């Protein structure tokens, strides 16, 4: 990988940068330039850039790809590829890799953690204690998690991991997916609306595509209802955020656990006043262990590419 020109689109886990430098890569940091200077930066360095490492914040869109004639590979530090223009990459013959499997468990853990946190109101209870309100009286009852009907939108790797964990809490599992999967223990519903009408905790865990954009709309939210809870560990654009806000504010939805938002890092302010909403700042795979595993996979893919070997986790 000596002297491979790699564009980093966003500040990464320090270990990743260190390992790239250790292997002799020439690193270019897009985020060092202010936003309106970034195209100038890309133009100026275009001939050096053979690889792009993108992530969930900044990927590789058509405009960027057009400006990089020598781009050979986009190695995304994520499993989701909604920020990479796959059509453009395919046209240009650019290879694309992502980081599946290594982050599956972390994201699933977070989904379950958010579900318990919302139903049992753990962060709200922590605020209650810290405000010394406990001295004046007890905290209200919070509804049980075990045994709740869990509905999973998208039964891929992450969805399956969530199902397996929720089963340990005796939760009956149902799902909607593009096609029915060979899991006889999990009930398949042919539409997201059917699923939402028949579950108590709905988890969004599908990829973001044109078909799944706004998959959680007003109808789904209404079907979940005042006792229902939405957990989103997919992408912000999966959910009609304005509808979600009004449903929560008006009490038409029981609660929400959200790791992703339409316009990160901005989050609807109305959520700040709600005890039945738990929010995390897109930390789905943000553990030390998984970040290292993702970095190792990105590097292994780049190395394989440079050596002419088969890529480990290619998408294109």
């Amino acid at each position, binding site marked *: 990988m000596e002297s491979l020109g790699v564009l980093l689109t966003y500040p990464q*886990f320090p270990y990743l940068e260190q390992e790239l430098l250790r292997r002799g890569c020439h690193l270019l940091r897009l985020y060092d330039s202010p936003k309106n200077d970034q195209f100038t930066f890309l133009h100026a360095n275009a001939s050096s850039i053979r690889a792009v490492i993108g992530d969930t914040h900044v990927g590789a869109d058509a405009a960027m790809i057009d400006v990089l004639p020598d781009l050979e590979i986009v190695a995304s530090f994520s499993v989701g590829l909604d920020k990479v223009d796959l059509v453009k990459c395919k046209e240009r013959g650019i290879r694309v890799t992502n980081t599946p499997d290594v982050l599956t*468990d*972390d994201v699933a*853990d*977070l989904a*379950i*953690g958010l579900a*318990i*946190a919302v*139903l*049992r109101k*753990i*962060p709200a*209870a*922590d*605020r*209650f*204690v*810290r405000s010394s309100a*406990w*001295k004046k*009286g*007890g*905290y*209200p*009852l*919070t*509804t*049980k*998690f*075990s*045994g709740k009907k869990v509905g999973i939108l998208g039964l891929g790797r992450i969805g399956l991991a969530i199902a*397996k*964990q929720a089963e*340990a*809490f*005796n939760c009956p599992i149902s799902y909607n997916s593009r096609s029915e999967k060979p899991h006889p223990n999990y009930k398949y519903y042919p539409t997201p609306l059917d699923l939402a009408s028949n579950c108590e905790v709905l988890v969004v865990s599908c990829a973001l595509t044109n078909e799944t954009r706004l998959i959680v709309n007003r109808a789904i939210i209404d079907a979940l209802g*005042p006792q229902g*809870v939405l957990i989103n560990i997919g992408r912000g654009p999966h959910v009609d955020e304005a509808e979600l806000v009004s449903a929560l*504010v008006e*009490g038409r*939805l*029981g*609660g929400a656990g959200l790791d992703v938002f339409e316009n990160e890092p*901005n*989050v609807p302010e109305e959520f*700040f*006043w*709600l005890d*039945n909403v*738990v*929010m*995390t*700042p*897109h*930390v789905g795979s*943000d*553990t*030390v*262990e998984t970040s290292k595993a993702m970095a190792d996979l990105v590097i292994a893919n780049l190395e394989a590419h440079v050596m002419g070997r088969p890529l480990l986790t290619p998408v294109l």
Partner: protein
Amino acid sequence: MGTRKTPVTLRKENMNFSLSLTASGSGSGSTTISSDGSPPLDRPPVLVLLSLSDAWSSALSAKFTIIPPSSPLSTSTRAVLISGSVNRVDSTLLDQYPSLRCVVTTSAGVNTINLEECRRRGVLVANVGETYSNDVADYAVGLLIDAFRRLTMSDRYLRNGLWVSRGDYPLGSKLGGKRVGIVGLGSIGSAIAKRLEAFGCKISYFSRKPKPTANYKYVPNIIDLATKSDVLVVSCSLTKETHHIINKQVLQALGKEGIIINIGRGAHIDEPELVRSLVQGEIKGVGLDVFENEPNVPKEMFEMENVVLTPHQAVFTPEALSDVIQICIANFEAFFAENRPGTTGTTTGTDYCISRRTQEGDQGRCAESYQTLKPADDLV
């Protein structure tokens, strides 16, 4: 569930409403005492030694005649409803109500009941078995995920506008592969272990004796358990032996990367020592639902980023409280079915009984009859 709509169900505060009775009994049914002074046969009398919520009174009085301690019938009543946290069942009480043959407690813990004395007098004891266990286990797992993945802290970070001004939150720690040391593998400890296994955690446990039916590694010494664990979960009952079971030595053995989750009792942990360790950075973090002097919490903790503090909530779901009513009623029904007035009954009271639900599931069905099981050891 939302802040706009507070569910109109049981609140803990309801449990302190005082019981109001008329001479004809309570509740909406006809519970008139017959002319010879005895309650109707179809509503056997149950002595009640705690304050009941509306939900409790109406459920209980639908099937039983509620006898308050002040009633002259109290000394001839054979069954009593108590709460482990309110009542002590000892010789004094058993002398006071000499006809008692069955004690039903709304608690899981039986440490305030003198089991030997009950056994000696042929008095059956029934607790609520595993009714609370799932909720407490859920809460313990919730606190554990929170401590490792910093849910509460990052939620607070976000609510304070820091995601915008400061950028991404620092990395958390993966659950998979972490070594979990469970202190006390009773019903709650087992439920916690079952859940954490699904997250890829490695489970070991410490208890007074190994559990032959448990598939987890037994560690006979709590210091060893702490040394070999990334997180300790305290889920044993509180006894003289387990008071301050988490002490300075255990905290040191757990070490700087260690986490503690406590859903037992505050007195399981030497709290001042814990605070000192946290202040000095000698352990990584804690999730605590219980404290030594509730509702007081050491104020140093309020400033800490790496602690999750909850107000003794683990058990309090409307589902559990409703299930407890059902299971206590089932226990009474089972007792009266086998011990009708005028019979000597089929139970000898040489062991105490724990009622078990015959079916799993969130609503579950209560035991149709109780079983005699091995005593005390199984509860810890």
